[in-house]
C-alpha cells in the first residue's frame, strides 16, 4: 500500500471542499423562495412571489432580450472563428504556428478588467459609440479561445484518412465537408455554441464597461442591487440563471463526449478545456 492520506480523510476533504464551493449557491434558491424581504436567517416561509415579480418587470425583460441577442451572436461568431482556427491548426503546419496559437489563446488567462479597459480605450479612440455591438465584440474576444479549445480536440480527433477516403470515393471537397467532416465535428460545434452562449450570458465586466444605454442581464442585476427591497427577486433571478447555466454546460459536455465517442476515442471530462 502507498503511504499517505487515508481514503476517509480524502473523502472528508472532498465534502468540505464541495460545501465551500456550493454553499453560497445553495443560499440563492433558499432566499428566492423565502417569504421575507430581508436576506437573513431564520427563514420565515415559502413563497413564489419573487418569481412573479420578475414576470412583470419590463426593464428585466429588455435586459433578457439584450443578453439573448448578445449571447447568440457571440456564440455563432466565436464558434465560426474557433472552427477555422481549430481546423487550420489540426491540418496544416505553418511558420510561427505555436506563437500565433498562443496569442489567440491569451484572452483565456488575461484579467478581464484589463481587457475591458483596453477595449474601451480602443473603442473611444476609434470613435465608436458604445452599444450592444461593442459588447458583442468584447465577448467574441473572450469566447473564441474557449471555442478553439473545444473544437481543437474535435478536429484533431478527426482522422484525416476519413476525408481522403470520401474524396477517393468520388465526392467533392464541399461534399466531403458536408457528409463527413461536419457530422463528425457537429457535437463539438454544438458544445462550443452552448459554452460560448453561457459565458456571454454570465459575463459582467466587459458588458458593464462596453455597453451603452442597453444593458445585459448581469449589468441589470448589478444595477438592481442598490435597492434592498429588490434583493429577493434578484435571488430568484439568480436561481433561474444558475439552473440555466448548469443545464447548458451539462448539455455542452454531453455533446463534447459524444463527439469524442463518434470518433472512437475515450472521453475525459476536462480534455476539451486543455
Amino acid at each position, binding site marked *: 500500500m502507498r503511504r499517505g492520506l487515508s481514503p476517509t480523510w480524502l473523502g472528508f476533504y472532498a465534502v468540505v471542499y464541495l460545501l465551500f464551493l456550493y454553499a453560497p449557491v445553495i443560499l440563492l434558491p433558499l432566499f428566492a423562495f423565502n417569504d421575507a424581504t430581508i436576506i437573513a436567517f431564520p427563514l420565515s416561509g415559502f413563497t413564489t412571489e419573487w418569481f412573479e415579480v420578475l414576470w412583470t418587470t419590463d426593464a428585466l425583460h429588455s435586459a433578457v432580450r439584450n443578453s439573448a441577442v448578445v449571447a447568440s451572436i457571440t456564440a455563432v461568431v466565436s464558434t465560426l472563428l474557433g472552427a477555422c482556427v481549430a481546423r487550420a491548426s489540426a491540418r496544416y503546419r505553418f511558420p510561427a504556428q505555436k506563437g500565433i496559437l498562443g496569442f489567440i489563446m491569451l484572452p483565456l488567462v488575461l484579467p478581464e478588467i484589463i481587457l475591458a479597459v483596453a477595449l474601451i480605450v480602443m473603442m473611444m479612440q476609434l470613435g465608436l459609440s458604445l452599444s450592444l455591438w461593442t459588447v458583442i465584440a468584447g465577448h467574441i474576444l473572450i469566447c473564441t479561445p474557449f471555442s478553439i479549445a473545444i473544437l481543437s480536440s474535435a478536429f484533431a480527433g478527426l482522422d484525416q484518412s476519413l476525408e481522403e477516403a470520401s474524396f477517393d470515393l468520388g*465526392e467533392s471537397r464541399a461534399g466531403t465537408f458536408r457528409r463527413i467532416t461536419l457530422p463528425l465535428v457537429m457535437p463539438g460545434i454544438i458544445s462550443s455554441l452552448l459554452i460560448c452562449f453561457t459565458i456571454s450570458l454570465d459575463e459582467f465586466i466587459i458588458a458593464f464597461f462596453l455597453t451603452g444605454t442597453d444593458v445585459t442581464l448581469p449589468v441589470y442585476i448589478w444595477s438592481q442591487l442598490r435597492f434592498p427591497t429588490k434583493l429577493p427577486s434578484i435571488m430568484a433571478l439568480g436561481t433561474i440563471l444558475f439552473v440555466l447555466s448548469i443545464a447548458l454546460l451539462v448539455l455542452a459536455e454531453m455533446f463534447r463526449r459524444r463527439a469524442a465517442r463518434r470518433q*472512437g476515442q475515450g472521453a475525459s471530462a476536462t480534455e476539451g478545456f486543455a
Partner: protein
Amino acid sequence: MSVFKPIIELRDVRKSFGTFEALKGINATIEEGEFFSLLGPSGCGKTTLLRMIAGFEPPTGGDIIIDGKSMDGISANRRPTNMVFQSYAIFPHLSVADNVGYGLKTKKLPKAEIKREVDKALSMVDLVGYGNRAAHELSGGQRQRVALARALVMRPKVILLDEPLSALDKKLRDQMQMELRDLQKTLGITFILVTHDQEEALIMSDRIAVMFEGQIAQLATPEELYRRPATKRVASFIGVMNFLDAAATSHDAAGLTLDIAALGKVTLPASAIPPNVHPSQITKVGIRPEMLTLLFDHDDRAEKEITGEVVSSDYYGDMTYYSVQLPQLASPVTISMRNTAGRSIAAPGSPVRVGWGTESVVLFE
C-alpha cells in the same frame, strides 16, 4: 498475363518534401489484372508512391499514366482508382451499408440500385447481413472487409491497398491473404499492395517492386526475386541468405570459375551469369539455407560436400534451422532442414557433412 496491357505507367516519378527526396525517379509499368506489390523497409517511400497514384499528393516530377491518360492535374475524386487505407478509414457515423454505398451515392445512383450493388459487394467479402451494423460494432477483420467492399463496389480499374493486413493477428492475416488473392483473381481488377512483409508480398503477388530509399532496386516475379536477387541488399531483404566471400579466377566462353570461401573452386556455366553482373566485380556470392543440406546418413549423397560443425539449432516444428561452422569462415552459415519422420536433430558440437550444388550459388552486383 498472356495479353500485355499496361494499366499504370510510372515515368520517372519523383517526390520531394522540402529538401528531402522521398522518391528518386520511379519507373514501372503495371499490367491490367495484375497483383502488384510495393515492398520495402519502413520509410522507403511506398506509401508516398501509392498516395500519388491515388491522387492525394502531386508528384514533384515525372508522370503517372493510368489507363492511357496522364493523371497530371486530375484529383483523387476523378481517378479510376480506389484506396483501402491502412487504418481502414471506415466512416464512424455511418452503417456498414452506408459506408459501402458511399461512393455510389456520390454518383447519384437510384436507391434500389445502390442497395443491390452494396449487397453484392458485401457478399463478395463474406459480410452478408452485416449492412445495418454500426462501424464500431465490427472486429478488425470485418472492418478490413468493409473497406475492401467500399472500394470494390466502385468497380475501379485499380485498387490500392496500403498495408491492409498489418493490423490483423497472424492467423487472420494468413486467411485474409488467401481471400484477397482469390478475390483479385476472380474479379480481375488490378491490385497494388503496399507491404513491408516480404513473406506477404511473395505469397500474394504476380510481380513485386522492391524499394529502398525512394528507388526501385528490383522489379520481378516472386520466384525471380527469390532465386535471382539483383543486389546483395535485395538478397538479404527477401528471405534468409548466406553470404560467402568470393572472387572470379577465370572467365571465358566455357563459364565463370569462382573461388568461394569454404566451398572452394566452382565453375558456373555462362548462362548462369545474370546480365547485370560483372564477373570481375564479384566479392560475395549467396546461397540459400535450403540449398545447403546436412547429410545425416552415410549413403546420403550430394553434388559437392564439405564438413563442418553444428553450433546451434532452432526447432520450428516442420523445419529446423542449424547454424553450422564451416572451415575458413568468420561466422557460421544457416542451413534449414525439413523435419522428416525418423530424422533426429543434430546436437551442437557434432561434426556434420554439408552437401550443396553449384546451381544454388547466387550471383549479384
